[in-house]
């Protein structure tokens, strides 16, 4: 009986969290006595109210005290940063350091020009300049390139760098089809007549060769060094890798015995990865990092009036490509593609992102060869778009359903704006924001999409439009022949003209809409100088970085 009784009062307590039923008067069927009990409880409760209030206030105060203590402690700890060292906050981390087997521009960004060096280098406006090869000659038939290497070049492990390392690097890359091997089209052979001369022969002219040799295709590795390329790196660059924690940070130390003119100005540079934009901003304001690239223009509003920091937008080759499926589905219809291009208000999208990005009407951005302003090809013109859609039998009342698939690393706002803009011309767009891996398998591999959105940040990537096998499914013989002519062009001027001609045809065909040319915003501490503003997501030489 007592056990049951206890259970009953327990269940009553469970049921009524606000009432403390004590066992003496728990369950009594007489109304009067029950009311009496409840009255007593009410009195008890009111006497308890005060103590509850006090304990409530005490707990709130203690929570506030703990928070204040934590914040102060965090700031005191975070504010300490040693001189002669800079921390750079980036967003996308490479999965490992194996630059010959792993794709992704995060590796180029971290390693090329800092730890590894290529045969040639680039300037901030994306043109080729001398690197390990101090000069070069091109034969009249543009099939033989002779590179004259600098003397006394050494790797960070002390080994000398000579023509044999260059030949070995290019040969193994081509033979094993490593990353960069596709960038030497028409490769025939590479030889070293002496220790400081390299001769590269092609079977057909290739006008993009020199630029490609300033990137992955031209990386010179030490043929005698043995190391784990996933976690270590031995190159001839101004820095050597002293510490690497995959996904978190890489510490670069200046080499004392660096051979060239790009000698590092700062002893230690730590590259730290912050996948969360807000975390990156916090790191900057707390002093944990002195440079953040990229920072979204919305977040940069938080520090634009802070005199400690400088915010700049750089020129880049990032193209936000809203690609249509040109191979199957409703968008094989050119009129609908054109209607979409007329309907999209690129200026409004750019404005909503803070206005720093540049309008882009075609496949080639301003820093790449063959650029021409094509924004006038499809100006925003809703009535023209509507009439094109009406001709195809679609109106706002009877809309065409399309889906847009893109990785959730790109902002949701873009999708929402496109839904809004296309609704006006009779297209009901459904947005699927998915994991990047899902995008890769459904869109990029299986071509199962209507519309896709990706930031194609590579430079010199017009080949995508000349390749019908690419996921766009864009097949235009004229563009393909113009592109191959451009690749075999004898002068840069001729190449640029041919590429511009091809780009204009692509833009007119409307196989995609180029939403904008993303200009990466970089912010840095006023005391830091020499961080590259242009192209720093693919090409980030850090030797000039200096802290006052």
């Amino acid at each position, binding site marked *: *009986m007592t056990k*049951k*009784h206890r*259970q*009953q009062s*327990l*269940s*009553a307590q*469970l*049921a*009524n*969290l*606000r*009432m403390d039923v004590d066992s003496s008067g*728990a*369950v*009594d*069927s*007489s*109304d009067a006595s*029950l*009311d009496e009990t*409840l009255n007593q409880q009410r009195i008890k409760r009111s006497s308890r109210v005060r103590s509850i209030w006090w304990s409530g206030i005490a707990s709130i105060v203690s929570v506030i005290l703990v928070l204040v203590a934590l914040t102060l402690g965090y700031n005191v700890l975070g504010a300490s940063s040693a001189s002669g060292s800079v921390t750079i906050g980036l967003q996308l981390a490479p999965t490992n350091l194996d630059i010959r087997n792993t794709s992704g521009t995060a590796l180029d960004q971290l390693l090329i020009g800092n730890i590894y060096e290529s045969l040639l280098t680039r300037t901030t406006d994306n043109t080729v300049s001398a690197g390990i090869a101090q000069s070069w000659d091109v034969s009249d038939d543009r099939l033989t390139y002779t590179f004259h290497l600098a003397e006394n070049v050494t790797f960070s492990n002390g080994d000398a760098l000579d023509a044999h390392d260059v030949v070995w690097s290019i040969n193994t890359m081509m033979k094993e089809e490593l990353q960069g091997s596709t960038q030497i089209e028409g490769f025939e052979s590479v030889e070293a007549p002496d220790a400081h001369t390299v001769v590269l022969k092609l079977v057909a002219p290739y006008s993009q060769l020199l630029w490609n040799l300033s990137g992955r295709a031209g990386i010179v590795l030490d043929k005698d060094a043995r190391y784990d390329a996933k976690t270590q790196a031995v190159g001839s660059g101004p820095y050597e890798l002293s510490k690497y924690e995959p996904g978190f940070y890489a510490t670069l130390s200046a080499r004392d015995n660096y051979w060239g003119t790009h000698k590092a100005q700062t002893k230690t540079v730590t590259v730290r990865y912050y996948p969360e*934009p*807000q975390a990156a*901003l916090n790191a900057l304001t707390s002093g944990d990092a002195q440079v953040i690239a990229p920072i979204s223009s*919305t*977040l940069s*509003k*938080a520090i634009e009036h802070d005199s400690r920091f400088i915010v700049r937008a750089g020129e880049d080759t990032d193209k936000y490509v809203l690609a249509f499926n040109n191979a199957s589905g409703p968008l094989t219809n050119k009129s609908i593609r054109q209607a979409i291009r007329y309907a999209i*208000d690129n*200026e*409004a*999208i*750019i*404005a*909503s992102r803070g206005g720093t990005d540049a309008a882009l009407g075609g496949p080639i951005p301003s820093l790449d060869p063959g650029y021409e302003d094509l924004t006038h090809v499809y100006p925003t013109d809703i009535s023209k778009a509507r009439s094109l859609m009406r001709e195809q039998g679609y109106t706002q009342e009877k809309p065409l359903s399309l889906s847009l698939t893109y990785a*959730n690393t790109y*902002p*949701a*706002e*873009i*999708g*929402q*704006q496109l*839904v*809004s*803009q296309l*609704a006006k011309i009779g297209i009901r767009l*459904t*947005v*699927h*924001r998915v994991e990047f891996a899902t995008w890769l398998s459904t869109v990029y591999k299986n071509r199962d999409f209507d519309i896709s959105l990706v930031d194609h940040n590579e430079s010199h990537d017009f080949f995508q439009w000349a390749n019908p096998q690419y996921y766009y499914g864009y097949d235009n013989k004229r563009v393909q022949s113009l592109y191959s002519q451009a690749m075999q062009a004898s002068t840069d001027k001729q190449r640029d003209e041919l590429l511009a001609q091809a780009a204009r045809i692509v833009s007119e065909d409307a196989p995609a809409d180029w939403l904008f040319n993303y200009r990466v915003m970089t912010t840095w501490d006023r005391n830091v100088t020499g961080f590259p503003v242009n192209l720093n997501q693919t090409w980030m030489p850090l030797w000039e970085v200096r802290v006052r």
Partner: protein
Amino acid sequence: MTKNETTKNDTVRNGAVRNGTSKKVMNKRMGIILKSLLTRWDGLIASIFCMLWIAVSIISLVWTPYALTFTDGYNVWSAPSSSHILGTDGAGADVFSWLMAGSATELLIVCAVAVITAVCGVSGVAVSVSRNSGVRGISVVTFDALISIPIIVIALLCAAPWGASIVGVIIACSFAYSLNLMRVVRPSAITAVRSPYVTFARYKGISEFKIFWTHILPQIIPSVIINVSFASATAILAESGLTYLGVGVPSHIASWGRSLSTAANFVTIHPSVALWPGVIITVAVIMINLLGDALRESIDPLTNAELRRS
């Protein structure tokens, strides 16, 4: 002492239900419950809020100040103004319209979770206090094992094959909260099962289902109500959390969680856009809990003297 009297009271009550006058008595009881609900301050406020919520949801199905497809790229993150009462978000869409439309989604989720939790939870309780000791034992062990599965895992399991969807949120929430309900309500059901009147009913050969329906269910209704209201309130929080993680409501459907998550990335720059969904979620959660509390107190003869006198 008290036991027998409660028993008598209960048999009287159940006797009345069984009589021909049961409908009249039920109606009268409903009236009393409703009256005492609306005379309590918490019950009144919560009821008004829920009415408003339902009204707004219905209106939002046919009208919102701006269409959900409206965006204005030149007017993003704007502060509240006469044209946009709660301002605009990062795409230039009207925050108020999206919150309004979100209230319908939220209402659907809350109602579905409440109904499914109540039905599944009470059925689970019935199984776990069944006469067959084998069934009883197995069910208790099973519930205890299942209760350890976190809600997010269930949501992920639902989202993997079908993608993010409202149904996934409802399934995940109902699953977790039904188990919670079984766990919490079972002790009071056991108390009822061990009472002499259930023994007597079983002795008379009345079916197990009928015994549960007429003798056990009325005993556990108050704690069921509390648990269901808690589940509905927590479902709102779960929806926001799951949507933020990308496994809840898909982004083209309005929901409070979606409104919150679109603002979350820039909460330090534009706190007000995150503030509104935050406020509405908090208020809704509090109101549902108040309503459950008030309803429980009005429906339980132990705490509602008027109901006892009827």
